């Protein structure tokens, strides 16, 4: 699946391993979680009040559109959470493929 985001400016930074719905992917140190996910996927979560998925909107911690679930039980706002090694993102139910 093609991600929504693309890297435009290389910031450098060591690789960070995480999983998205069990699939291993890599991000860079200094990536926010929303970046780490949307470089690989086209959504962050299913919309709980209707059809479709959501992928964030304001990127400044105002709209609350980008909350995601992690395997350790945490719920985090992806646009204000730096990616950490070993994070297990659960999008679950977001369209696979």
């Amino acid at each position, binding site marked *: 699946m093609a991600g*929504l*985001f*693309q*890297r*435009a*400016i*290389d*910031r*450098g*930074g060591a690789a960070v391993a995480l999983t998205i719905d069990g699939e291993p992917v890599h991000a*860079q*140190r*200094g*990536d*926010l979680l929303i*970046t780490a996910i*949307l*470089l690989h996927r*086209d*959504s962050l979560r299913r*919309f709980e*009040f*209707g059809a*479709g*998925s*959501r*992928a*964030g*909107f*304001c*990127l*400044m*911690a*105002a*709209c*609350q*559109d980008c*909350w995601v679930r992690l395997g350790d039980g945490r719920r985090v706002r992806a646009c*204000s959470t*730096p990616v950490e090694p070993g994070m297990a993102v659960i999008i679950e139910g977001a*369209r696979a493929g």
Partner: protein
Amino acid sequence: MRCAEALARSGVTPIVVDEAERPGGQVYRQPPAASEPASSAMYGFEAKKAEAIHRAIDAARGRIDYRPRTLVWNVFGQRLDLLTPDGPRQQPFDRLVLATGAMDRVLPFPGWTLPGVFTLGGAQIALKAQGVAIGRRVALVGAGPLLPLVAHQYAKSGIEVVAVLDATVFGAKLARFSGLCASAATLAKGLWYVARNRLRGLDVRYGIGSLRVEGEHRVEALAWRDASGEERRVACDAVGASFGLRAEAQLADLAGCRFAFAADARQWLPERTLQGRSSVAGVYLAGDCARIGGADVAELQGRRTALAVLEDLGRPVDRRELASLDRALARQARFRGALDAAYPFPAHLVDAIADDEIVCRCEGITAAALRRAAREHGASELNRVKALTRIGMGRCQGRVCGEVAAELLARACGSELERVGRLRGQPPVKPIPIVAGAP
């Protein structure tokens, strides 16, 4: 930050509570600490200013009690309720300076909740704080000076920008040219962005009549009606769209500040004197949270507000600095007035909102629900509509939908925008774990 720095210089140690991980706010936002230093490519023309403010903050570190990753979710009397990395805390204060800033003004259009649609501000943050683009083929839509800037930054970073659409008309900009000259440097930068965009074949199209994002699971195309009424369409995989800025004043509301309706901004704003004082003794408002002025004004105002705080504390202030700040602020106000007139509110996009359009993106509530509340329940006040429909009650607490809900309600009731009121601020202003509410 300028306010904190000025206070620190005068021997007062301010506590700076910042939701972000690193200082800089949104305009001069820094990448997370773990990454390489932000390159000048990420800030463009503003690189020097970004560097200056980051350096000033670093220099003042020892004299500012900086609390990153800390959310203020309530103001209760002389106390802040905080959510810190170490859990819930309370922070008493005797003076409070609120600098809660602004965010994009959002208007719904078909497809605006699809993955791949972001605000213009969001599109810009992706690039400058992360070095990523929101897509591979990007369309940008706006009604303010952010539009040509983001178009420029994207194109300069090598990203394919397939359309730059302005919902306002070009004539409004020409008509305000003399007022815009009040800040010649800013005007010159704006013209330079537009000219550079044109060289890249990125003409801004003005006077967009309506727009629609198409796609099943994610953005596939943007369609719009141009100024002559013709339908246009371009394939793209991301859209950055928003329509000016709105002041973010929920904490001012919780602090008890008096609000007044600003007809030009089409928003209720906390009252603020030229010196930065609110209607509540000991509570000050700096930057965009009480009126949109932009980053340069916010720096001036931050410093001016610090002087007001020092005066109120009975400390000596530099009269010359005070007078020069007041002069600079007056000049900027002239520029801002002209800029606002050059980018008028795109009311036609509100008029075009259909019944089935989602107004509240948190919970997927449509314009029809709002109009029904007005028609069948006689709701003519925004908080009443909130109770009936849940518009403004979701996770964003009305930050995204509040203004457009007011616009729609005023139209549904045939009343003035001012008459439908504003959403009252409610704690917590952002989601917090339940344990944090019971310290």
